[in-house]
Structures are given as C-alpha cells and as structure tokens.
C-alpha cells in the first residue's frame, strides 16, 4: 500500500507531469484547431438562421462555449485545488492556479458575447437577467482568486490560500446561480429573455457541440502549458529542471 502511494506520487511529480503534458499538448492543440475550424464553418455558414432571431443567433456558437468554459474552468480550478490541498500535490496546485486566468477570460468573453447578443434582442447592452448576473458574479469570484494568489508572496502559500478561496467559491456557485435566478424571476415578471439556443435543429447542434468540445480542448492545452511553465519556475533549483534546460539547449 505504501509502495502504491509512492508510485502514485512519483507519477504526479512535477517532472513526469512536465514530460507527459509536453507530449499531450500538441495533440490537444491540433485536435482543437481542427474541431474549431469545422465548428466555425458549420456555425457561420451551414447552420440556418433562427426564424425569430435571424443571423444574430450565430453568436451562440461562441457564447455558449464561453459560458460552458467559464463554469468548467471554475470546477477544474476548484477540483485541482482540492487535490492539491488534501493530498499536497504540487502539480495540482499549479494546474489550479493556471486555470484561473484562462477561466476568467472566458467568463469575460461570455459576458461580452452575451451583451452583444442581447443588444439586438432586448435593445440594451446590459440586462440584469439571471444568467448574465450569475456570470458577472462568477467573474468576480475568479478575479478574487487571482488577486489573492498575486497578493501572497510565497508561491506555495499563495496557491493554497487561493485554493481554499476557490473551493469556498465553488460551494457558492450553485447557490449564487439559484439565488440570482430566483431574484430575476421575481423582479422581471412576464417578459422572458431567452438566451437559450432555440429548440435544437441538428444543423445547429453539431457546430455547437464542435465548438464546445474544441473550446474545452483549447482550455486544457492552455492550462497544461501554463502549469508546465509554473512548475519550471517553482522547481528551478531541482535537478530535473537543470537537466532539462542545459541538456538540449532549453528546448522542451
């Protein structure tokens, strides 16, 4: 049992993660690119316009993946933080903190695209509807984690403190979502602001799924790369980094 534990820890060591991720990222990158091109072509060209919303419905092909990533990113960040805190896995700490800015940027994207979608639909750029409001709070949760991580000088303390905040926020996300929805339906009354994809035509569903999958792969590729960079920085005095950097002139 003890041996299994040690094997497991070795597997999750910064060095093995670095090599493993180094081989994985190109695959993630290329498959993301292919899927994204297919999704964009499908979304911008082949999919039909909505009979109510016209061509503006095409925004869902970037808005929905962004919104999906904002939530997935947060769960990834919180999950990695949990692993890092409970089992003291450095790689998990790096992955968690790497996910924060990426997730935040996609939350921002979801807000902007949501606004741009809303303007032709409701006439204003911002509406306090349930989903946009929840996304905004989510953005602030992200920014809080990032701010805390940058405020603490010691990098291990910083990632652990920010990890706790991420976990507390994670508990909060469904509560916020529910409370905002309740708040919105109470205050808004009968007018329904539908930001949902209209009842799914297969020609719309496919590009949507392609874009969502491509975005997820992109997220993983970026986060894995950032984590690699972070681990090199943290472990710069360790032997594996020295060997890595001197052996083949610093190329990965």
């Amino acid at each position, binding site marked *: 049992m003890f041996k299994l534990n040690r094997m497991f820890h070795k597997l999750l060591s910064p060095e093995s993660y670095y090599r493993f991720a180094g081989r994985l990222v190109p695959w993630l990158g290329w498959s993301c690119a292919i899927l994204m091109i297919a999704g964009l072509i499908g979304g911008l060209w082949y999919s039909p316009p909505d009979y109510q919303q016209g061509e503006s419905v095409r925004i869902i092909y970037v808005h929905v993946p962004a919104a999906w990533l904002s939530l997935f990113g947060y769960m990834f960040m919180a999950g990695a933080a949990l692993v890092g805190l409970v089992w003291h896995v450095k790689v998990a700490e790096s992955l968690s903190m790497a996910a924060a800015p990426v997730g935040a940027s996609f939350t921002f994207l979801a807000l902007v695209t949501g606004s741009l979608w809303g303007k032709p639909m409701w006439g204003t750029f911002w509406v306090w509807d349930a989903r946009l409001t929840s996304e905004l709070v989510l953005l*602030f*949760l992200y920014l809080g984690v990032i701010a805390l991580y940058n405020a603490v000088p010691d990098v291990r303390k910083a990632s652990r*403190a920010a990890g*706790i*905040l991420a976990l507390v926020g994670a508990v909060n996300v469904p509560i916020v979502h529910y*409370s905002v929805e309740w708040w919105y339906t109470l205050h808004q009354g009968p007018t329904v602001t539908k930001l949902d994809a209209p009842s799914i035509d297969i020609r719309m569903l496919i590009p949507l799924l392609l874009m969502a999958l491509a975005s997820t792969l992109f997220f993983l590729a970026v986060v894995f790369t950032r984590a690699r960079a972070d681990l090199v920085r943290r472990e710069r005095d360790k032997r594996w980094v020295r060997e890595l950097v001197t052996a083949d002139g610093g190329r990965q």
Partner: protein
Amino acid sequence: MIRRTALHACAALLRRDLRLAIRRRSELANPLLFFAVVITLFPLGVGPDPARLSGIAAGTLWVTALLAVLLSLDSVFRADFDDGTLEQWLISPHPLPLLVLTRVLAHWLTTGLPLVLLAPLLGVFLKLDPHASLTLFWSLLLGTPVLSLVGAIAVALIVGLRRGGMLLALLVLPLYVPVLIFGAGAVDAAASGLQPTGQLLLLGALLVLSVTLAPLAGAAALKIATE
C-alpha cells in the same frame, strides 16, 4: 484548577473577546455610526421623495449593513496574529474550527447584532414600510451571522498580508451575493404584502451551512496563513 475541555476553552475565549470589546466601547460604535451615516446619505443623494426612498429602502439597508460588517472584519484575527496568539491557537489541543467559531460569535455579538437592532430605526429614515420592519429584523438576524462567518474565512486567508482593505472586499462580496438577494428579497416581499417565509427559510439554510462549513475553511486558512 485548569479546565481542559474544548467547551471551556471556547467559553474562556468568548469571555475574553467580549471583555476586550467592552473595554474598547468606542470601537463598538463604529459600525453603527457607519450604518447610520451612510443611510443618511441616501436621501441626500436620491432626494427626499418618500415613494422613491421606500422603493430602495430594503436593498439600501441591506447593502449598507453588509458593508458595515465588511469594514469591521479586518480586526477579527489581526490583533491575535500580530502578537502571536494565533500561533498558540494552532498548537493548542483544542479543535481550531471551534476556536474560529467562537471568535466569529464574539465578532457577531459585538458587530452584527447591534446592526440588527439598529436597522428598524434606520428603516424609518428610508420610509421603509412598517410591515417590513419586523422582516428586516429577522432577515438581518439570520443573515449577519452568515456574513460574519463567510467574512471570517476571507480574513483568515489574508491575515498575514499587510494591506487587506480592498482585497478583502473583492474576495468577500461575491460570496455575499446570495445572502443579500434573499435578505433584501425578504424585506421587499414583506413591504409588498407578501409572505417572506421562503426567503427567511433560505437565509436560515445558509446560516446552517455556514455554521458547519465556515469554521473548517477558516481553520484551514489560518493554518496556511500562519505557517
């Protein structure tokens, strides 16, 4: 005779904190004064029209109370961090979460509870519907402990840092959103003649959730911040 059980330790801590708070009576007044002054600003800012004031009364009272709690949070652990008492907490045989819970209780008794008692009076300034005053009281009574508990986690995370101020606000305010929504929502419902039971029950649920989980998170945060 030395008493060793955790409950005795918590009682001693509570007594100490309350005694210290009473000795610094003027500091106790600060959140209340803040509450009162800021509430006074609103009619000055938006005009004395009673209809408009009563329209914003519920939310304004709640937001201001929330900010008053936020401003008072900085002192929750700082003094003990500075003089090393916090490290004694860490090596003490008593469960850290319990100590954290006790500290938050002391903080709430000296900060949140006075706000709860003052709020209905200030509601008069904002022309809050009298039917809603009782709901305001109950919503704050249930909500301010949650604010103290969740706030304590955030303070514990940054207790080692020099300048907490704005960072604390950024960390904690998103976490306060559900409490605000249900709290102000309860008062608004009561003002419209509806029953605020749902919102109050949800506030109660949040209270139970935070009483059980916040001390654990706070303890973990303190361990990280002080090691």
